[in-house]
């Protein structure tokens, strides 16, 4: 049911902690990366990358601690130390800074040299007649398999070293006194809190808040317009304000009414003036 730390190889021990720790941290980092993208920051370029790396530190400490405690309780039957997450994190970070850099360099060198060797092999007179599609696949298989083997060996080396770090912590830990079922319950409660409705409410509320943040940051129109697409340059119609429009219409009508009345009065007056000379004219005899 449980294995002694010495029974598990360092590679297996390292894998048992590092693999689930990686996946435990990934969802949170993806969400952080997405928010950066929505804000127009690339998580792989300077300000965004620094922000993401900084925020990843507490996430990684928590993830390594959680998975480390799980392995200690479930697989090794050991009572984990309270500072297990922090210790494994800083030791793992130091390992990544040294061995990781070396492995990256070796990996790149291997890929470059195996690609060069594969290309040389394919340039041999004997293989010149090989058609393009076959040539691509053979060349890829040649350098891909060499690179994959070297990368796998480098990864196993990394897991071995990380497993040694975990083993050191396991050697210093005391055996767990609780029976297996109780230990399973203990590590289970570390993952899922006892108050389920509260957990689901918090999870849902966080999700809703993040989605709202996403929509708030997101650009409304495409950040990559098509080069031949002509954007419609329509002038926005002024917003209609019903009360103002009615008042304006009323004012216009009142003015119009006043103008009509003034015109009517003027017309009456001029009619009156015009009628008087007519009478005089009627009284006077017309000249032949």
């Amino acid at each position, binding site marked *: 049911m449980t294995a002694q730390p010495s029974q598990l190889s360092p590679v297996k021990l390292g894998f048992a902690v590092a693999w689930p720790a990686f996946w435990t941290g990934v969802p949170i980092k993806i969400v952080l990366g997405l928010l950066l993208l929505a804000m127009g920051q690339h998580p792989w370029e300077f300000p965004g990358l620094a922000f993401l790396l900084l925020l990843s530190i507490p996430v990684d400490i928590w993830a390594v601690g959680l998975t480390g405690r799980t392995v200690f309780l479930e697989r090794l039957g050991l009572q984990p130390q309270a500072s297990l997450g922090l210790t494994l994190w800083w030791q793992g970070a130091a390992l990544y800074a040294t061995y990781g850099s070396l492995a990256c360099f070796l990996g790149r060198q291997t890929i470059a040299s195996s690609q060069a060797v594969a290309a040389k092999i394919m340039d041999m007179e004997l293989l010149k007649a090989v058609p393009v*599609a076959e040539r691509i696949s053979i060349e890829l298989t040649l350098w891909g398999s060499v690179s994959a083997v070297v990368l796998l060996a480098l990864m196993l080396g990394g897991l071995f070293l990380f497993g040694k770090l975990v083993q050191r912590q396991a050697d210093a830990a005391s055996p767990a006194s609780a029976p297996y079922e109780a230990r399973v319950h203990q590590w289970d409660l570390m993952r899922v809190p006892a108050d389920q409705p509260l957990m689901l409410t918090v999870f849902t509320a966080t999700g809703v808040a993040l989605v709202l943040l996403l929509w708030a940051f997101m650009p409304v129109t495409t950040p990559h317009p098509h080069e031949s697409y002509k954007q419609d340059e329509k002038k926005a119609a002024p917003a209609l304000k019903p009360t103002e429009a009615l008042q304006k219409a009323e004012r216009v009508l009142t003015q119009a009414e006043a103008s009509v009345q003034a015109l009517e009065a003027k017309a009456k007056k001029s009619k009156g003036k015009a009628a008087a000379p007519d009478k005089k004219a009627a009284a006077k005899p017309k000249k032949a």
Partner: protein
Amino acid sequence: MSAQPNLLEKVIAFVDERVGLKTLQAKMLHEPVPGGSRWAYVFGSCLLFIFIMQVVTGILLMFYYVPSADHAYASTQYIIHEVDYGWFILSYHFWGSSAMVVMVFAHMSQVFLWGAYKSPREMIWLVGLALFGIVMAFGFTGYLLPWDQRAYWATTVGVEIMDKAPIVGDFLARFLKGGPTPGQMTLSRFFVIHVMILPAALMGLAGLHLFLFRKAGPAGPFRGTPDELKAKTDYFFPRQVWKDMVAMGAVFATICSLAFIEPVVLLEEATPDPGEYHPEPEWYFLFLFQLLRLKIFSGEFGQFLGGVAIPGAFMVLLAALPFIDRSPERNIFKRPVALVGWILIMTSILIFTVSAIINREFLD
């Protein structure tokens, strides 16, 4: 003294009395998971989530999309450039389809490696294979709808491959194209299949898949003593629900990120002249496309062999798998043929997909 039920409790009691809400809830959430919850079991739930999101984004797109050869391209450009957040909804829908294919592969691989297709779960496996076909058909039919050069030529290549199938190939190709070259009839037929026939088929089969899964029960892990499995056996709620929710959140965030990093940008409007464009299908069919470029698969018979016979035989083999592999052993490390076979298939798909990408340089 018992407290009076509040309004919400009264409403729940009213509905429960009529539809058996509590029984349904108990059936849905209190399913025992042998060996406890696991991250390896999240793929099926994630697939369902992605499908629901595809339906939601698809409906939103249909408010603006016009399925006619004259307006499909313009309406898609309008969605991208004029509709508020249209570019994001379209890009989410585009990447969602790829995510569905990836998730189907992950789910099928998990079932295969865990030996969960073995008796008494043969029917679940067979319905799952049909669902796999539907997901691929979704990708194929949806690809044409933007009506740009990429869409037009990917469909032309796909239909030509389909034409090589014996007996039904010619009929299917003629039916889908609806004319000598892809045109209005092709677009109409692909649209109807994409938004009417395939969703209905997927919903029906997914329901059957879930029913069969609940009937047979989860297979559980392939390792562990009965004592260990018993100690860890748990109900579906809350631990598996929690894991499913986290995985769905991660999938949603990944698809959104892809929509931001690589949003949909259309090529030129579809024409029967490819011009400088080199036709190729969607990335998940690239391995098959590259396979057909090999000399061994040239000529009429070679194309039939690579495009139809080998993929067809592989699908038949997958369907027959639970009836061929009758050993009760589920531990993948004690099934070397299955493990080596899976690694070979996955490596071949990877090599041919990457080869197809490298091959682009030689075409220009």
